[in-house]
């Protein structure tokens, strides 16, 4: 992520980069990225595996819970292969992982793949919808606030600040009270159809819109102060076109970088949103797995989170070159 931030920062300035012409997609870099991506996944899952073993409390003890009778711990150890040396368990886990087997949940006692697959789309759907709405709101807020009077701008920046700082939990309850309990426009819970997605999406999108909006406006303002904008205007280009084609486009790089890291935050923020709205999803799975030390599920969630980061950062790399032609040909 850091090299993207640096690069984004560098390109957001005015450093000219030699422009080669080798096509929009930097295939070599994408392949290299995939290679490092696999390394990242391996490192994440390995670290998580050993950290989970190092936390106090043996897995057999936790699975036993309030139960205690002769032979229980031995039966649990035998059931899950927990008596083997840790390195052997690790190698077995990796072996299964390579074949696509994520193991079986200790607590729910069904394949981890099924558990994740059963609920992950509801979270992805929510996160994507929230990201989309967040970006749209952010662009609208920042474009609207530019070239306005001091009062209007102060107002909008206050709105953004409120969006960023109110707790997701509270917004969710507020929206539910107004639009579900009182007006009854939307159902309180579930993941059936578009209308059950509306309130959770708004809840999750507001903080994203707040943060993105601030960044967008700042860099648009900076761009509008650049000398080239003056020459564009001098050619008689309409102010709206200047705003969208030039200022907004220049502001996109830092905003994209930020949006990339927000995707991870959206998955995290989904935990609370899902609880308030009683939605299925990765959030509730993770919460349950962590509190019960359901190791196979926790490892799968770690793997999934790492995968999202790898995919998003690879996509961003490609998008940078699409948005900013100066980057094509570098490296």
């Amino acid at each position, binding site marked *: 992520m850091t090299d993207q931030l640096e690069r984004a920062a560098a390109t957001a300035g005015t450093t000219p980069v030699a422009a080669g012409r080798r096509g929009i997609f930097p295939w070599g870099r994408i392949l290299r990225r995939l290679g490092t991506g696999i390394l990242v996944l391996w490192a994440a899952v390995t670290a998580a595996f050993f950290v989970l073993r190092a936390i106090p*409390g043996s897995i057999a*003890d936790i699975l036993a819970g*309030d*139960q205690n009778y002769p032979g229980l711990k031995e039966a649990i150890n035998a*059931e899950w292969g927990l008596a083997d040396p840790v390195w052997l368990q690790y190698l077995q886990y990796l072996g299964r992982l390579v074949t696509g087997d994520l193991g079986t949940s200790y607590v729910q006692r069904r394949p981890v793949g099924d558990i994740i697959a059963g609920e992950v789309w509801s979270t992805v759907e929510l996160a994507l919808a929230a990201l989309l709405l967040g970006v749209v709101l952010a662009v609208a807020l920042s474009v609207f606030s530019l070239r306005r009077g001091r009062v209007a701008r102060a107002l909008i920046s206050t709105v953004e600040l409120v969006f960023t700082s109110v707790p997701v939990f509270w917004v969710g*309850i507020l929206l539910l009270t107004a639009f*579900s309990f*009182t007006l009854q426009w939307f159902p309180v819970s579930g993941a059936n159809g578009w209308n059950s997605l509306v309130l959770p999406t708004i809840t999750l999108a507001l903080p994203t819109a707040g943060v993105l909006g601030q960044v967008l406006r700042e860099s648009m303002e900076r761009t509008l102060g650049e000398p080239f904008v003056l020459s564009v205007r001098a050619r008689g280009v309409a102010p709206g076109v200047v705003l969208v084609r030039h200022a907004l486009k220049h502001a996109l790089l830092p905003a994209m970088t930020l949006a990339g890291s927000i995707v991870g935050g959206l998955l995290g923020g989904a935990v609370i949103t899902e609880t308030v709205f009683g939605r299925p999803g990765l959030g509730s799975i993770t919460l349950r797995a962590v509190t019960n*030390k359901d190791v196979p599920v926790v490892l799968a969630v770690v793997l999934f989170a790492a995968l999202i980061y790898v995919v998003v950062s690879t996509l961003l790399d490609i998008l940078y070159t699409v948005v900013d032609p100066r980057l094509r040909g570098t490296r």
Partner: protein
Amino acid sequence: MRHRHLRLVLAGLAVTLTAAACGGNSAASDSTPGTSGSTAAAGTPTDGGSLTWGVSVEPVCYNPQRSGQQNSYPIIRNYAESLVGKASDGSYTPWLAQSWDISGDGKTYTFHLRDGVKFSDGTPLTAEAVKENLDFIVAPESTQSSKQALVNYVSSTAVDDTTLEVELKQADAATLDIFASIGTAVLLPASLKKDSDLCTPDADLIGTGPFVLDGYQSGQQISFKKNPDYDWAPGYAQHTGPAHLDTVTYRFLPEATTRTGALTSGQVDLIEGVQVTDTSLFSGQSGYQYLTGPSTGTAFSLNINTRIAPADDERVRQALRDGFDLDALIQNQYLGTVKRAWSSIGPDSPYYDKDLENTWGNDVDAANKLLDEAGWTGRDADGYRTKGDQQLKIVVGYPQPYVRDQRDVLLQAIQAQVKQNIGLNLDVQIITAAAFTDETANGTWSVYPNTLPTADPSLMFQSLFSSNGFLYVGADKSLVLDDLVAESRAGSDQASRKAALDRIQQTVVDDARYIPLYTPVYTVAATDKIHGIAFEPQLNSPASSYDIWKS
């Protein structure tokens, strides 16, 4: 109007007759205070319709023999049934077994199964099927939760299709309770043999209950449809034959405010786990009803490890027990929705020791005197008592997953009072479940705040106060009550059993290894169109949806 009166009277008569017929039990709710509207049939039950619950917890595992989660039982009871039913007065009623005989030495139980009971796939229930279930639970490689209750089980024999003989190692007074528990519910033997744990609600999870699985969306809801052939309701039920409702859906709404809003906006018909501050929205309000379940399990309590200083000194524990005004704290926080506890068993259990009432608590002078005697006479800069350079400090480790109903807030209120009243530093910490497990395995836990799911009192006391429990694993015999617990379990007649259980209740409060705080109850709120809501005494939780009907 006259007509309606007549119907009410008739209905009341019917209820009385039914109650008399099955041993004097009726809806558990009318025996409990705080109930603002009995659900005893106000009119003739109508069949049909669908019902939606808003429940607080999605079961982690749907297999009755494996689940240890009390909140899962009201859902599981819709499809899983036991040999014996347990009525609200503590008596046992027929269910899958229509009767049973107990041998003179108390070691052989012969169950006579009801004729014509079928699993929901049409397979008849036989004694052999029950035997296969029991053998499956106690198999050496089994890790089923219910295995613990069956420690005295030796073997069982299917004498014929409807007669099952169960052999025990020794007489065990908890036996009928164990066969009334959800852990020994009978599942289709063919499903048990499949290589599956039956934790996921799918086509393999087959029982004999009044409802059959209809749909399941993990993290969202589970729904059932009625089994039209069902005709073997437990003796304590309010009716016989198939369920009234056509379908019933349980929606998982973990956030209490959301549940309340879902009910007030008509998106669900009834909710469980009403938060204290929302009680007034339903209790005594027209259009709604608010019900509380019985309390027969352990209290929410402080279990104090008698092996860890300074609480290894009985006087220190007693000072803590009496160093705060429990009545006022409970009233302040729970606004009269729960009762302050006096003993380790709930007041609705037939084994509750009423003599403990008004014998302890809120005696600050005596508490201070005890601490003076114990040598905690110094004071440090923060106002805490000291002995030498030691501060009078007791750590409470509350495992995070078990924190609910603002119980952490209650502990903090006690913390503040004992600091001011007796200079004791009650250090309340929220710890991880893993850390707690580690502490119990090593015996280093200090104070464990908890409630056990209700069960036979001997089983609950074995968990808490014996070296066979999870708190005192392998503890020195002088510290635990193994003999008393064994005596209470072996007691053949009710009176000698009660005497042994009374002695345990008194011992643990007298030496303050156990400080009861309040008696938790299940709460239910519903619209007034919902009738027949009941609580199952074996679980204290809402019963299955079998008796519920809509008007």
